[in-house]
């Protein structure tokens, strides 16, 4: 009997963003309603994928997605081992837009918690998701699939850490008050940087950004004064010429870390030749990102091997699970038949009676068990048959 596990869904590989956003299920309202309609199942809904996992017939899940206006060509249906392999690959980050990204593991965990909360899991699903989460953790701790920054902002942060080790208390100067400056400041603030000095041609805009991060605003004329205090400089101002030249930077013992993400550039490249200055532009950052991406891709075979191992472990567990289920069914049948013969008795007292004398129940149990074991133990195909010795 095949693994009755299925998956119906769509992802960034099969559907454009307009379709994905239409199907995305809001965890507060839409997702519980979908779970209620699905009966037993787990729904993984992120910005890149909406996938419905369940056991048995995938018809309901497919109908649920089609009802949300998805065309069948955007959907994929996987069953049995293939569905399970897909879940494991998703949790390990192999199926993500950015290979090895970390958020997906938390999203898989959330999906399981939500299904549990609404009583929508059952043993096969529960075990599959638990195995997927364990595999995701293992993949990230035992391989380099999640190592290294894969965005320009994080690459800059990693480089700053390679220079300073600890960014807490450092003074950050930001040239320009645009979105990129804000993004970098958000990351740097999360690392505990100290003072934030925002320099912009329009002081009002500088003040708005500075206020958001508890910093100080300066006009462009104050740039040399700001540079004299800064440990980290992020340049993203729209200017037709260089704003920072080597002559503007005073001699210092401490390193000065500069990121120039403006186009055209704000910092004269000669600054990078100063003994204490470490200057990086967008090309440098993208090179770091590319190297990290390549390194992650090199780790994929190792993670694939972990996926196959987890799959084998799951199938081994599943074989045992089927046997346990079959034994349980048998016990229930015997129990039912014996209880039918002695409806007035309390089955909970069997073991007490058995200690004193041969109770008619015990005899009935023996006779019943013999009779049941003569034929096939289960109405359908049963794994117990595989463990019976061949008949002569």
């Amino acid at each position, binding site marked *: 009997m095949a693994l009755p596990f299925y998956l119906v869904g769509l992802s960034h590989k099969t559907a454009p963003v307009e379709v994905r956003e239409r199907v995305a299920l809001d965890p507060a309202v839409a997702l519980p309603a979908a779970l209620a309609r699905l009966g037993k199942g787990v729904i993984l809904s992120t910005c890149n994928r909406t996938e419905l996992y369940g056991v048995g017939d995938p018809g309901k899940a497919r109908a649920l997605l089609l009802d949300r206006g998805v065309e069948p060509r955007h959907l994929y249906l996987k069953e049995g081992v293939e569905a399970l392999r897909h879940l494991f690959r998703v949790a390990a980050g192999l199926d993500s837009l950015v290979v090895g990204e970390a958020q997906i593991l938390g999203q898989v965990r959330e999906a399981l918690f939500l299904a549990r909360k609404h009583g929508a899991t059952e043993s096969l699903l529960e075990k599959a998701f638990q195995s997927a989460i364990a595999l995701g953790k293992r993949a990230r701790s035992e391989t380099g699939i999640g190592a*290294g920054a894969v965005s320009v902002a994080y690459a800059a942060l990693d*480089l700053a*850490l*390679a220079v300073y080790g600890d960014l807490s208390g450092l003074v950050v100067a930001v040239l320009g008050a645009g979105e990129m400056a804000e993004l970098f400041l958000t990351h740097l603030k999360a690392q505990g940087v100290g003072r934030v000095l925002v320099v912009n041609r329009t002081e009002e805009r500088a003040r708005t950004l500075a206020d958001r991060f508890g910093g100080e605003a300066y006009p462009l004329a104050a740039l040399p004064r700001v540079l004299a205090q800064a440990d980290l400089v992020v340049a993203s101002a729209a200017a037709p010429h260089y704003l920072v030249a080597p002559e503007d930077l005073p001699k210092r013992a401490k390193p000065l870390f500069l990121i120039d993400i403006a186009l055209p550039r704000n910092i004269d490249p000669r600054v990078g030749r100063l003994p204490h200055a470490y200057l990086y532009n967008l090309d440098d950052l993208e090179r770091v990102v590319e190297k990290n991406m390549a390194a992650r891709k090199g780790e994929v075979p190792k993670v694939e091997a972990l996926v196959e191992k987890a799959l084998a472990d799951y199938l081994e567990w599943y074989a045992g699970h089927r046997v346990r289920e079959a034994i349980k069914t048998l016990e229930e049948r015997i129990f039912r038949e014996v209880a039918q013969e002695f409806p007035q008795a309390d089955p909970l007292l069997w073991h007490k009676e058995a200690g004193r004398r041969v109770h008619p129940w015990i005899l009935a149990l023996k006779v019943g068990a013999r009779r049941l074991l003569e034929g096939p133990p289960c109405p359908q195909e049963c794994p117990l048959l595989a463990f019976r010795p061949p008949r002569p």
Partner: protein
Amino acid sequence: MSPANLLALGGVVVLALGLFWPRVLHLGTLLYLGAALADALAKGVFSGPAQPALLLGGLLALRGESLLQRPWLAPLRRYLLLLALLLGFFALKALSHPGGAHPLSLSLLHGGAFLVAYLALAVGVGAGVMGALQDLRLRRAPEKALQNAPLWSLRRLERGYLRVGYLAATLGLGSGMAWAWGYFGSPLTLDPKELSAFLGWFLLTLHFLLEERLRGLPRAGLLLLAYALLLFAFLGAPFLGSRHPSRLIF
């Protein structure tokens, strides 16, 4: 085999194990210090090069152990442990030496100053070389710098330790020269030990003078050469035989 030899041998074995199981480093340090004490009781304080070698090795191992809290400095820790092992092997060789009859005050001042110098320079040079390489990576291949010890942490280690080491080496060298001048009428002779110590000190001086201009591999090379010469004065030159008027082997 004397108790000092036994203890030193045990220390070497334990420190070698400490490369893989850092928890035993304390024990290795204790065995080194125990060996130095046993030798001092048998022959007198700093009577030969084995005692400072054991003391230095023990303290280096202890410094290496303290770096366990900073995993990104693991290469520095391994380097300090290997240096401690080298000193242990040297001590095993030197323990059989009967020891010279130096004045105690000179032994303590000259030997003590060089002991501090070797200890501080071992850490300072290690951090300096790692820092110079990290500087090179950050400038030429920043993607390779991400997995290594942060530049500023290394620079801070390097500066503090090199300064202390340089001052102690200057004191050790000066006191040795003054003693030699008083006894033999010349502060410096064509003795490999004296010349290598002096050259090592000179290169360190050059490093401080050119600190602003030197970067990358030349900086790392200069530091390594300076330390190698000083180490040679301690561990290598004695085996070449003395050309010193005192005729002391060590």
